[in-house]
């Protein structure tokens, strides 16, 4: 391939692979895939320099639907895998993608520490308040009275508030998006990728199969009525008091990302033997 072609901009379409998604017709994740590829194109990225890392669940299938490097790992550990990748290869753009069960339940501890560690990653969670792949069980974001075979009559548990948790744990960029607005979501994702440090984007992405009532989200979402803030106290009040449907970048700071320097070797390996030599 010639240099001229290699440096030609890559279109959003060229970021989509020819692998057919397993998602149900009407799933919000199709739009998220489009938003993601649009964001890549907007930023002028190249597929070989982007890695999309995921765990397990419907939305975690997304890496293979791009033409980027992908990693479809084990349930709940995508943030850890991506952390290792980004620290070892800071030259790459690394995205982490998954669902509410993967990220907030089995992967909850990694979520806290990824926010806190602030590695330069973008984490998008396609939140549909349900386990879809295992056919409809409640997740941490499911309403407490949602009836299911596994939890008849509902779990009775209060819902997990990912944005509040992310803020408290130290995420540098916090946004909420809606899959039904692919262009707006693409803008938010591009901003998240561009912002150094750990960027968390919660995307409301309806599951029309197990939560058909989520079709209503289209009517409920609205642009956040306030501008992005870098004040965590102000952000906390907004996030904790909104009804979960304010869309936009809600918090954006400039905390220095965690990246140990991977300088060049300054010594010969055998110099280390001075530690042991008698």
């Amino acid at each position, binding site marked *: 391939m010639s240099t001229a072609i*290699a440096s030609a901009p890559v279109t959003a379409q060229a970021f989509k692979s020819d692998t057919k998604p397993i998602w149900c017709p009407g799933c919000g994740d199709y739009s998220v895939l489009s938003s993601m590829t649009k964001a890549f194109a907007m930023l002028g990225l190249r597929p070989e320099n982007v890695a999309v890392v995921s765990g397990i669940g419907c939305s975690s299938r997304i890496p293979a639907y791009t033409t980027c490097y992908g990693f479809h790992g084990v349930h709940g550990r995508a943030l850890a895998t991506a952390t290792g990748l980004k620290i070892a290869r800071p030259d790459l753009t690394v995205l982490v993608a998954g669902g509410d069960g993967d990220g907030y339940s089995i992967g909850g501890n990694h979520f806290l520490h990824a926010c806190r560690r602030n590695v330069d990653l973008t984490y998008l969670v396609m939140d549909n308040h349900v386990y879809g792949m295992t056919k409809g069980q409640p997740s941490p974001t499911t309403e407490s009275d949602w009836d299911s075979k596994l939890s008849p009559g509902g779990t009775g548990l209060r819902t997990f508030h990912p944005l509040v948790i992310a803020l408290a744990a130290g995420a540098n960029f916090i946004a909420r998006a809606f899959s039904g607005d692919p262009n707006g979501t693409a803008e938010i994702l591009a901003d998240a990728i561009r912002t150094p440090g750990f960027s968390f984007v919660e995307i409301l992405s309806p599951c029309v199969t197990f939560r058909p009532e989520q079709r209503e989200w289209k009517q409920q979402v609205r642009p956040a009525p306030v501008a992005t803030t870098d004040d965590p106290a102000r952000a906390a009040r907004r996030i904790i008091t909104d009804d979960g449907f304010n869309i936009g970048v809600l918090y954006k700071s400039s905390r220095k990302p965690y990246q140990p320097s991977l300088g060049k070797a300054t010594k010969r390996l055998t110099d280390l033997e001075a530690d042991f030599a008698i």
Partner: protein
Amino acid sequence: MTAGNILLEAAAQAGWYGLMVRSSGPQIRGGEAAALMRFASHPIECLDDRFDALIGIDWQNIHRFADEIPIDASSVVIGDPDQGNLPEIFVKHGPVQAGVPFKQMAKAIPGSWPNMIMLGVAAALVGLTAEAVKSVVRKSHTGKALAATLAAVEAGFAAARTLPATPRVLGLGRGEAPRWLITGNEAAGYGALRGGVRFVAAYPITPATEMLEWLAPALSEFGGALVQAEDELASINMIVGASFGGVPALTATSGPGLALMTEALGLAVAAEVPIVVVDVMRGGPSTGIPAKSEQGDVNIAVSGLHGDAPRVVVAPNSVVDCLTATQWAVHLAEAMQVPAIVLSDQFLGQTRAVVDRPADVSSIAERETATAHADGYKRYAITESGISPMAIPGTPGVPYTAEGLVHNERGVPSSQSRDHALQLDKRERKLRLHDYGERWAEIEGEGDIAVVTFGSCTGPVREALARAEENGVKARMVSIRLLSPVQPERLAKALEGVKRVLVVEQNYSGQFHRYLRADYELPGIVRSLRRPGPLPIRPDEIYREVIEWSRA
């Protein structure tokens, strides 16, 4: 421990060999601790059957160590008369008894400590000169502390003149050959770096932490990084991520951590991502005995994953072999794109020993990678060797998605029997066809009795067989370094003509014995000699088994 370290270094400076095994109780800091030491003019790899001298500053909680310190009628037990009588658990064996008022003597030298008096006594007993000890003390002390410590050592030497004689180390070691004073954990860390590891993620755990603490600054000097992860699930997934990015990566842990890591080990098998996991074994199951040794993780290392998941398991057989075994494990992992477990243990990891500097080995990470725009690239291509070139992110024209689901050659998830069988076959084949060379085991001696062992039991076995030979009984030793993949043909060859096999290991249920029974043909009569940790298997026990058998 401080006194023990100084004593060991002084012995090393004097040209001797020696080792110090740490044994401590459950306290976080302070409390009872024993430095179990042995010196010789030749290289040694284990503790002896008994101790010539036991010196106690006080006897608090001594019962916790009693079993680990075998004393007999020719041993000398020295205590501080002000700390009460010598403990009955030792006195009952009839040792020579003596007293040194450590605390009083230390009090008489302002700024000194009883353990430095004891250091002088111990050094005198083994036959070191006061100057040899002082020169080491001068390296780590300054000012008033130095003067007080030197005086305390001197006082200890003076006190030793009135004590009963003990066997002394005679003759000098090899002198000219370069030697190291090193722990197995440090050696494993250095081996990892020599093998090419440049990314480490880990969660602190006894007794593996020192390896990480040694690696943290060392890695940063060589263009690498160490990340302290939030738990072991994170640490192993982090190294999988780094290695997917093309950087050789490692984590170190102990049994409880390995248990948490098994899921991601399976991921590394399926997605074919090379990683190295060092397991410094401790007593188990569950939290077990954190600071003491046991070889109880054979089962989990060799077969503790769901599905059919071939992996590499390498067991170092001495403190210094932690270096070469770890370096080799990195090489094997990278060459075959597979997880490799290094099965070390607390004895090897935390014992500080004087060793000959090992010969340089050239195994460094070599991964077969895909070239840019490779025509019709398939990440999991079915190849003759079973190894498929791995595309490293950043390489254009060959991106793929690494996959933990059963997949086809392109990495696209598949639930078809044909794809599953082909990939299982390929992953088994790549391990089977690799040429492991002579390093798979240490094979020594001859005769129709063979002792088969691995890991830290190798030292006692080697010593037992040397004694047997001195007494006219010949036996072979096979210490298996490569536990997985199994090498039945090689072992069969090593055991040709053998009529009796003694299997030696340090765990309760005979995990290694069962592993051998399952995957190897063992000739003749097979006996298992085993005991759970933390008591080591002593050379004498093995020697007696062999002698008894030779007469049978």
